[in-house]
């Protein structure tokens, strides 16, 4: 009996959470006449799948998709590579100033990224990187959070793994990328997912760095499309749907890693 209440409240909360997505899908397949009907229906009387084709053709969405993918993928690959190298140094090497440096890196996580926005914009503008891929990507090639996650994981690996590799004469880079990374799959998948999602959804930075549609990523392109078409809601919802789809699919496949990574950040 009590379980009934649990399910009832959960379903109500799920409706609140998923409702906007259902409404987005529903509107995206309605013909113009039905969008502005006094009584909204979940399913349209006449299905208008061509909203997707129309929306896709009214703005360079293919370009936005490519930009989003290119920027996010590149940031993720570099973040993993540089992050793993730094994590390896902090987890397995002795060097001058190690503890001070690690604490200083962690301290930078306290600074809200927004405070850095203006000086970074000036730096990118001085480098003549406004409206270019390097301008969009280079400031985000490393994140301290990735270094932190990987260092914790490396510290938990058995010492023998590292020692065996070093005895075989492997340098740190070969030990790291030849032996350690292949057995650290869970942590780099988690780091990669968190980084990729963050990069894909980045908004403010792209908004100020990209000033032509050639370099817009999906979120900024979508907002631009929205202010262009105004209230053509069926096409807008179609565009919103195909914009969120890749990330939802990625999340559905990788959610085990993603949610565990997030949950772990809450427990010390």
């Amino acid at each position, binding site marked *: 009996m009590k*379980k009934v209440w649990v399910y009832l409240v959960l379903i109500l909360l799920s409706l609140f959470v998923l409702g*906007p997505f259902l409404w987005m899908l529903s509107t995206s397949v309605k013909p113009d006449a039905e969008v502005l009907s006094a009584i909204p229906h979940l399913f349209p009387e006449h299905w208008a799948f061509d909203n997707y084709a129309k929306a896709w053709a009214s703005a360079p969405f293919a370009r936005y998709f490519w930009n989003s993918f290119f920027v996010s993928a590149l940031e993720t690959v570099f973040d993993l590579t540089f*992050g793993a190298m730094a994590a390896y140094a902090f987890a397995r090497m002795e060097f001058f100033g190690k503890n001070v440096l690690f604490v200083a890196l962690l301290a930078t996580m306290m600074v809200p990224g927004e*405070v850095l926005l203006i000086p970074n914009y000036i730096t990118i503008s001085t480098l003549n990187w406004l409206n270019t891929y390097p301008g969009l990507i280079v400031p985000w090639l490393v994140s301290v959070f990735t270094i932190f996650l990987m260092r914790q994981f490396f510290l938990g690996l058995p010492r023998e793994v590292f020692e065996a590799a070093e005895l075989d004469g492997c340098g740190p880079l070969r030990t790291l990328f030849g032996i350690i990374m292949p057995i650290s799959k869970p942590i780099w998948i988690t780091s990669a997912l968190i980084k990729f999602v963050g990069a894909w959804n980045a*908004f403010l930075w792209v908004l100020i760095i990209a000033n032509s549609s050639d370099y817009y990523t999906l*979120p900024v392109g979508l907002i631009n499309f929205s202010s262009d078409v105004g209230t053509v*809601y069926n096409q807008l919802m179609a565009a919103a749907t195909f914009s969120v789809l890749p990330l939802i699919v990625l999340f559905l496949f990788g959610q085990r890693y993603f949610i565990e990574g997030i949950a772990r950040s809450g*427990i010390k």
Partner: protein
Amino acid sequence: MSFRLRRSVTAYLMLLPTLVLIGVFVVYPIVDSFIISFYKWDMLSANKPFVGLQNYVYIFEDPLFHTALKNTVLYVVFFVPIVLALGLLTAVLLNAKIRLLPLFRTAFFIPYVTSLAATGIVWQWIFNDQFGLLNYFLERAGLHPQDWLNDPRWTLFNIITIGVWQNLGYVAVIFLAGLQNISREYYEAADVDGATPWQKFARITLPLLSPTTYFLLILTTIEAFKVFLQIYVLYGETAGPNNSGMTLLYYMFTKGFGDYRMGYACASAYVLFLIVFVFTLAQMALSRRVHYEA
């Protein structure tokens, strides 16, 4: 070269990309932002006079900054308790040995991984005064429809709703991990003593969950002080009717990239930084004090 020195050199080579990038794009801007906040500068001209504390004096006398501060604080004061309470409720329900747990958990998490740029447009459509879903439901319930997006009284409600909606799953997942960390033995002992479910929640769950709660309290507070995106998506470049959606970050954005007043923008960025910093210190102090063995 000695062995120790060589090891240090190798380690620093491994750290080189990180140190260069963090140095240029994090450490330098922290310093530079502070310096700019003492100058009058439009970012383009070579003329960049030092003005001392004048930028800080200006923003603290600027009515728009007062509005931004007031709106941001109101957002924090409502958003944080609501998202924590709903997140805890969700987590407790998900922890009740239900079927389809993974399915529910996935559903709650989806808004957190999707871009507000896309979902914000959906909310704009839901809040539409003529054909929006919200007014339809209000009318069905016999209530007056509202002009959600043009009436400044609703601005805060709109952005809090979207904020709660997006972060609910994140908060619930972290609470759920905290709940699963509490040993079953406490509840079994309480059952032996004949405790009611409410007593168990108040005397066992809440106290043992408090490290997680404090972590989330500070984290969501810090995030809430930086509220920006849902306002930009709902209202475009206007910060809502009558600046009812003007927040600290929106103020910085307007001063910097609208008016090209870099001094004001950096001064307001540092005020935001200071607020976040105080909460971060509070977190560190609390995490040392609040500690239970779970």
